[in-house]
């Protein structure tokens, strides 16, 4: 099977896993798990769908940096509350 199709199936599986974890599980570590899964999914989209893995590095750093900064801030703001 083509690589893109595998990426797509992994993205679907991670999405369902995150949703089930959020609705079935409980614990202080849950936001870390759910935001971590979002980071993995986002990076897969950035690398393989947006094709930034082989783009000029500045663009990959900018978009991945956005992803990690926003998810990191959301996690920190939530944990500090």
């Amino acid at each position: 099977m083509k690589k893109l199709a595998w990426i797509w199936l992994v993205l679907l599986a991670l999405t369902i896993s995150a949703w089930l974890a959020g609705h079935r599980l409980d614990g202080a570590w849950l936001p870390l798990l759910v935001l971590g899964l979002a980071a993995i999914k986002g990076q897969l989209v950035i690398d393989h769908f947006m094709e930034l893995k082989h783009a000029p590095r500045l663009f990959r750093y900018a978009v991945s940096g956005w992803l990690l900064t926003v998810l990191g801030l959301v996690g920190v703001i939530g944990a500090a509350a």
Partner: protein
Amino acid sequence: MSTYQEVVAAEIEASARRARHLPGDLAMWFFILAELAVFGLLFVSLAFARAAEPQVFADGARTIHAGAGLVNTLILLTGSYFVARAVKAMRGGGADACSRWLLAGAGSGAAYTVIKFSEYVQLIGAGYNLRSSTFHFFYFFTTFFHLMHVLLGMIILIAVTLRCRRGLYSAADHRGVESGASYWHMVDLVWLVLFPLVYVLL
């Protein structure tokens, strides 16, 4: 025995392959980065609002249809996959396949829009609106703002499809397809951050 010119030509070709390629126009990427900045501000504001009123957000999250959020995420990821296939098809010179994958991507946007509207109809029918609570303000504001980007993305995909059918792209030159695809993936990427904030973390 290759001539000097042939050696130089082969070397130029090899270095072009090694060069890093930005898919689409530089202007589109500046636009994408500007969009990401706005969405980032919105998500961080949402996180602060949630931290200030955790109970309001927990109660509010129970009023929305979490399953619709899951299905819409799967639909957007699938649409993104279709559009990524469109770019690959065009690189192989398959303009017909490219326009079919692009239309499938736009179709996923239409399915997303129908589900999103049914969510709004259900919530508004149950008496909720922007002023119901801080959670509902952020829910309606953020998801509607994102929905407008889905609609713009669909318009872009359909415009690129029409140009593709007119034979305006080739395996060597399909920057327009890449620009449209990059915008569509940005709309998907932003939703992947919005999804846990609204539909998963209660």
